[in-house]
């Protein structure tokens, strides 16, 4: 439970800090949280100390073998103390560091969230869960680095850090998954126990590489080290916390944690060790030439992490001891150094070592602390840095046998470099105070310095009496990692005169020499940046990669994607033909076609039909009307074919639909731009266009041929046993109608019809909504030329006048006279629908046509002044009627749409069978009428409207809206 609270409380605190109005008391909250954590952890030592393990489990996703497990052993305990101990100090420090102008609540909120995630990483007893918290540290550190997000460098640093570490995190996830699949469990203990199995497995190398990628990116190891210096844009407390003690330590923590599983192979040796050595050299060398204090510290951090990584790479048990020990030491002195740098920055307003001089005079105490700390960093005896570095030297000797010296040489070089940059850092305190400081420095408030004092004190204590100070805790950690393999070691300042001691001395003296030489040769104190041209600038590489990725993606999209319509349609059609050919084996074969079974009259019919179709295809661009007429021709032929092949209902419907569609398109034509074929333009069609047309032509031909072929195959095949017959058998007996098709529509498959009328209504509504806001193109507003030539007497009359007493009077009267008869016909078709061709749909269309004709002849204004149609109501009622008819069946305990037949005895008509399907069909009728009328009327209104187009006002509704 205490274990759980360690993780939970920081996150809770983070939320509180963000949203409670604490008025600058967030620091106390944060400090309290961290302090609680520290105390709780120390208390947990009872369980986790000397070889014990604390565990907390909660079931989460058992199906995937994933539970929430917290696990604290020696190593975890040590890191937990580190995280929270330094956490407390950092909070205290930040309390004084942050300026009142900054949004402090957010700072502490993020800080606590980060602390929680970091603890999560350390305490996870389950690899997947570890990855979860791992990514969380990346995210929270992103927020912390970008805290001053009005600054461009902060944004860049944050993005860089997140991109690199998150990418690493994904690799880590993959690696851990592979590891889990090798072991068969994600539980840490199971994995730790299965070391030999893992190393033997063929998937070991990929797993190792992926996990290494995760760890190396996080710990800023070569070649991923470049993000850390950019992350220095963060407020100094953040750097002191994340980049000394916690975030960057996560990587090495993971390597230590998995050391028993992954280490001990040449791959491990070369990948981890190699990365470490290169990093420690690059880092320490670069550190010398930084002008910015934090830059120097960042690179020195990189090199020290390099040391740790290299130690782990070496792979001897003693090296692991050294690694863990150095983690502690580095955390203490580096955190204090960052804080000292922060104080200098805070007091003088500058971090530029070319400006800063002789600060010792004004900041004596801080100066002393900083000098001691940097001495520890340089590995001066009697300080903690010295001991672990000495252990490192000792280990390097062992690498590759007694006569292999390269590792030791590298180590000594690193030692010299680190002495040099330590000296450069100390340089800011000596000499005489420089004048051009932005602020007049003075010692910081007591408690701002306190954390530094504590840490420096620790450096001394550990440096002088290592065995009695950290000894036991260190050994706990080591045991928890190495188990039986724990070597005998002796933490002591003095091991007598031996090789490592000699190496340290060489490094110290060499470092001093190097520094003074650089000073004379390059006046080091005034330079920023490495003297030798140094190509490998990770930052710029990163930027250019990012830029290339986005622009490259854009370029790629132009090839693998499109936003134009034609290519998309082409793709659909091509895919439709290609996919069957690609997937289906064997394709059905065509059987021999004999000309004898060509029905001549049908052939003649289709000669016309096909001709019309091709003609339409030919003419559609320049002669729209012609094309429309031709298509109409094809439609007629189609409907005749239906009639011929014994589908009267289809024929009727097709005919009516044909009529209405034609009228619709005619109404639409008026709004299209004039397009006159220019002969000379035809002459020089650009080559690309001709190619495209050629391609389309081929596609069209192939498509047509394919359709023809497949139709022929179907027609010549022997039909299988189908459900169609059932309907013929049961239409009359149970559907109560002899027109099987109609019974199908209103009964067997009434549910389809149901959806179908919905579609009609939806479209009508959409059309209406669209046309209410319709703006005609300016040039198509005035009366077209055809209608405005002087000879035509009708020009001066409104449509109404034409119909009342103009030359349209006769037809006008005639159609008006016709109206009731057409209605009668509609009713007739409706009534007989159930037994003979006809039905609600056809009837509806006929009925609609009756009114369309009125509109066409007498004009919109006249019609609407004489009769009020309410298409919306028609549709609504239609839908409701149909639905209620269906629901009615429920009352009889039957499913939706079940048809019933009522037998009535009416005075005049005698016996009447009234099937419920009748009402359903009525609904269909109503919807069809309503929808069709609404569409047509909405279109018709445009022509009235556009004449009284007010300038600038797009959304004209007619005075009398269609209701």
């Amino acid at each position, binding site marked *: 439970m205490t274990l759980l609270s360690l993780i939970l409380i920081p996150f809770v605190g983070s939320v509180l800090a963000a949203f409670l109005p604490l008025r600058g008391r967030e620091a106390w909250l944060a400090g309290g949280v961290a302090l609680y954590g520290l105390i709780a952890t120390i208390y947990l030592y009872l369980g986790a100390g000397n070889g014990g393990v604390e565990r907390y489990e909660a079931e989460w996703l058992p199906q995937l073998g994933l539970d929430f497990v917290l696990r604290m052993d020696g190593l975890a305990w040590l890191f937990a103390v580190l995280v929270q101990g330094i956490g407390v100090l950092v909070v205290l420090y930040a309390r004084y560091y942050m300026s009142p102008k900054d949004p402090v609540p957010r700072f502490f909120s993020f800080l606590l969230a980060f602390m929680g995630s970091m603890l999560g990483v350390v305490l996870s007893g389950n690899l997947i869960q570890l990855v979860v918290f791992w990514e969380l540290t990346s995210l929270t550190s992103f927020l912390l680095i970008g805290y001053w997000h009005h600054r461009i460098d902060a944004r860049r640093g944050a993005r860089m850090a997140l991109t690199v570490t998150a990418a690493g995190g994904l690799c880590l996830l993959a690696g851990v998954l592979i590891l889990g699949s090798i072991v068969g469990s994600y539980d840490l203990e199971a994995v730790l126990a299965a070391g030999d199995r893992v190393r033997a497995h063929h998937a070991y190398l990929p797993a190792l590489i992926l996990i290494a990628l995760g760890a190396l990116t996080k710990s800023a190891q070569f070649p991923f080290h470049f993000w850390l210096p950019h992350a220095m844009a963060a407020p100094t407390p953040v750097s002191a916390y994340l980049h000394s003690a916690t975030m960057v330590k996560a990587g090495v923590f993971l390597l230590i944690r998995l050391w028993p599983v992954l280490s001990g192979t040449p791959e491990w040796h070369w990948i981890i060790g190699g990365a470490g050595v290169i990093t420690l050299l690059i880092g320490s060398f670069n550190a010398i030439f930084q002008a910015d204090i934090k830059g120097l510290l960042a690179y020195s951090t990189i090199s020290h992490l390099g040391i740790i990584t290299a130690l782990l790479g070496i792979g001897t048990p003693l090296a692991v001891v050294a690694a863990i020990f150095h983690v502690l030491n580095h955390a203490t002195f580096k955190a204090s150094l960052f804080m000292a740098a922060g104080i200098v920055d805070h007091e003088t307003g500058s971090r530029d070592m070319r400006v800063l001089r002789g600060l010792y005079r004004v900041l004596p105490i801080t100066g002393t602390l900083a000098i001691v700390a940097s001495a520890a960093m340089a590995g001066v005896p009697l300080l903690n840095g010295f001991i672990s570095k000495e252990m490192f030297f000792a280990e390097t000797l062992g690498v590759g046998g007694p006569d292999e010296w390269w590792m030791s040489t590298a180590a000594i070089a690193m030692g010299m470099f680190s002495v040099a940059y330590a000296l450069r850092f100390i340089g800011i305190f000596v000499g005489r105070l420089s004048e051009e400081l932005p602020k007049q420095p003075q010692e910081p408030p007591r408690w701002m310095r306190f954390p530094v004092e504590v840490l420096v004190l620790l450096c001394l204590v550990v440096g002088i009496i290592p065995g009695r100070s950290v000894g036991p805790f260190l050994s706990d950690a080591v045991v928890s990692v190495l188990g039986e393999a724990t070597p005998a070691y002796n933490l002591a300042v003095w091991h007598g005169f031996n090789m490592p001691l000699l190496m340290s001395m060489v490094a110290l003296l060499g470092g001093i020499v190097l520094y003074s030489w650089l000073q004379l040769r390059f006046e080091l104190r005034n330079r920023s940046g490495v003297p030798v041209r140094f190509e490998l600038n990770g930052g710029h590489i990163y930027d250019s990669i990012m830029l290339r990725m986005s622009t490259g993606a854009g370029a790629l999209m132009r090839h693998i994607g499109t936003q134009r319509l034609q290519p998309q349609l082409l793709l659909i059609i091509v895919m439709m033909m290609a996919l069957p050919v690609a997937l289906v084996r064997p394709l059905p074969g065509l059987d021999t076609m004999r000309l004898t079974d060509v029905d001549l009259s049908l052939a003649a019919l289709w000669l016309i039909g096909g001709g019309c179709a091709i003609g339409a295809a030919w003419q559609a661009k320049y002669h729209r009307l012609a*094309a429309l007429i031709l298509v109409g021709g094809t439609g007629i032929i189609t409907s005749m074919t239906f009639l011929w092949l014994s589908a009267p209902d289809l024929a009727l419907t097709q005919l009516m639909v044909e009529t209405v569609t034609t009228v619709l398109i005619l109404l639409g034509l008026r709004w299209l731009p004039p397009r006159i074929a220019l002969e000379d333009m035809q002459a020089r069609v650009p080559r690309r266009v001709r190619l495209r047309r050629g391609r389309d032509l081929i596609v069209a031909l192939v498509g047509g041929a394919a359709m023809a072929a497949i139709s022929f195959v179907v027609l010549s095949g022997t039909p299988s046993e189908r459900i169609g017959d059932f309907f013929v058998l049961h239409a009359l007996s149970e559907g109560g109608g002899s027109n099987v098709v109609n019974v199908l529509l209103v009964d067997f498959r009434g549910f389809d019809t149901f959806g179908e009328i919905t579609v009609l209504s939806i479209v009508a509504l959409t059309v209406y909504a669209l046309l209410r806001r*319709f703006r005609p193109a300016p040039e198509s507003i005035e009366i077209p030329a055809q209608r405005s030539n002087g000879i035509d007497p009708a020009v001066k009359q409104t449509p109404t006048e034409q119909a009342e007493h103009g030359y349209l009077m006769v037809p006008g009267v005639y159609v008006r006279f016709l109206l009731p008869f057409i209605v009668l016909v509609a009713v007739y078709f409706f009534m007989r629908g159930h037994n003979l061709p006809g039905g609600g749909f056809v009837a509806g269309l006929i009925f609609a046509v009756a009114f369309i004709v009125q509109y066409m002849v007498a004009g919109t204004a006249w019609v609407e002044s004489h009769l009020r149609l309410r298409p919306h109501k028609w549709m609504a009622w239609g839908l409701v009627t149909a639905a209620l008819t269906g629901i009615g069946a429920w009352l009889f305990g039957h499913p939706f749409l079940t048809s019933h037949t009522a037998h009535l005895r009416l005075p005049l008509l005698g016996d009447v069978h009234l099937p419920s399907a009748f009402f359903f069909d009525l609904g269909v009728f109503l919807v069809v009428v309503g929808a069709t009328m609404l569409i047509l009327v909405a279109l018709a209104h445009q022509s009235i409207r556009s004449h009284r187009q007010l300038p600038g006002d797009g959304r004209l509704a007619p005075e009398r809206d269609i209701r």
Partner: protein
Amino acid sequence: MNLVIALAIGVLFGSGIWLVLRPRTFQVIIGLLLMSYAVNLFIFIMGRLKVDRPPLTLGDGLPDPTALTDPLPQALVLTAIVIGFATTALYLVMMIGSRGVTGTDHVDGRESEE
């Protein structure tokens, strides 16, 4: 008969494809009309082709399914026709709407740069 119908469908569909791939909205709408004729016929022929055997069970006694055409495809075609009608109308309105707003009758609502 089969051959004729098959060819007819092919011709309609082919010219439909050609038109649908054209850049002008009007061409596309005509193309859609032609294609939908083709598809309607196609569905229709999935039943057996019979001349003068409409699926009307007028005579009393149990009707003989094999004597009549398969009514199901006809029902499907009817639904398809209606839906086709609706969507055509919609596209038509889109066509003139887009012409009104964008000033062009190109299918992309803007003249292509090529």
